């Protein structure tokens, strides 16, 4: 592929925005905020990706999906780079991504509420003074309770709505 024929970077971002997350297919990789860079280095397209959780089993599948999506568009010189720093945060999930999560039945993250390892936060929660309010993605009620800090994947916690009684996943902050 000659330099002049390189697809436009904005076009490539649009292609990547159509690649779904393998575990939560209603949200795209770009909505998830894990694509950190797309650039041409000579004739090679370099896509920089950051993992969500260190042990997320979807990471290798995501890499394959990106590769396939771009090769299908005719990009054959492609390199994927892993970038750890700055570490991924749920703050990078787009507004569109959050809406898609809610519509799918997963409560989107409430920014700024990640665990920080200090006991003060935990004690506040045990004492009922935490300001973390998670709205039920089904009925919208804020009368919800946490069942477990870990859910069906590392990025989610298990909650229950005490109004409509439905259990649901909360995409917890990190």
């Amino acid at each position, binding site marked *: 592929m000659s330099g002049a024929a390189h697809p436009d970077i904005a076009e490539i971002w649009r292609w990547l925005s159509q690649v779904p997350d393998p575990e939560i297919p209603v949200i795209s990789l770009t909505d998830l905020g894990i694509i950190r860079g797309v650039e041409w280095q000579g004739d090679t397209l370099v896509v920089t990706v950051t993992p969500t959780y260190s042990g997320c*089993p979807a990471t290798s599948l995501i890499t394959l999906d990106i590769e396939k999506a771009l090769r299908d568009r005719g990009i054959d010189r492609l390199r994927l780079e892993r970038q*750890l*720093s700055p570490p991924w945060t749920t703050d990078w999930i787009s507004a569109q991504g959050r809406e898609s999560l809610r519509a799918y039945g997963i409560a989107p993250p409430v920014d700024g509420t990640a665990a920080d390892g200090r006991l003060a936060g*935990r004690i506040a929660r045990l004492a009922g003074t935490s300001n973390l309010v998670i709205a039920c993605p089904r009925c919208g009620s804020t009368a919800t309770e946490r069942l477990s*800090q870990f859910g069906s994947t*590392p990025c989610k916690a298990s909650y229950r709505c005490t109004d409509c009684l439905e259990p649901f996943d909360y995409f917890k902050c990190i």
Partner: protein
Amino acid sequence: MAQATPAADPAALVEWLCRMGDNCLILGHRVSEWCGHSPVLEEDIALANTALDLIGQTQFWLGLAGEVEGKGRSADSLAYLRDAAQFRNLLLVERPNGDFGNTLMRQFLFDAWHMAMLDALTGSTDPRVAEIAAKAVKEVAYHLERSADLVIRLGDGTGESRARMQKALDSLWPYTGEMLLDDGVDRAMAAAGIAPLPQDLKAGWDRTVAETMAQATLAVPQTGYQHKGGKTGRHSEALGYILADMQFLQRAYPGAVW
């Protein structure tokens, strides 16, 4: 990638990276033994998720160890092809699971240290170490929150759960001293600004443990004999059984790939 680490002796750095990685690997393996056996579904999932985080962090630490060593060893070959005497994990993380309470107490005692260590490592002079720590510390904050929470609920629980948690604390206590003791490798890392001295983490660890045990209504044992040796490869027999299980496939079918 190869800039970094000004004055650090590469052999000491590899040794230290293996300590970080092996702690995650062996504890991750131990915790994964609960998968499908936990008392309730939510706890089964939580334990599996914790194990997954730890195994993920293992890949970063051991991957970097292999890279710094420069002999072509990957995280996988370090995990599957070393024997017990080459492992550098703390004796604490190879302790058998025991009951659910014992597993959670071991997790808490380790998490309290792991959190303090990673927090300090985010300021490491080696950017490769700092970026792994910055990633891992966010996950470990959740581990610590959960293990402290459960230690409190089980300690300040029924007579039966309280007795089991006290027993767990008493039996694990002699294995906690090792993570707060300095040796030559630790001093070399501290001198190069790569990692804190373990003894500098002691005051914070003591405080976290004291606050949590007070809420859990458990008595912190008075200091007594402390085992050590894991950091230099002298392990308890427990590690051999873990490796027999974990390494079987690569030993029986060398080079097998997924």
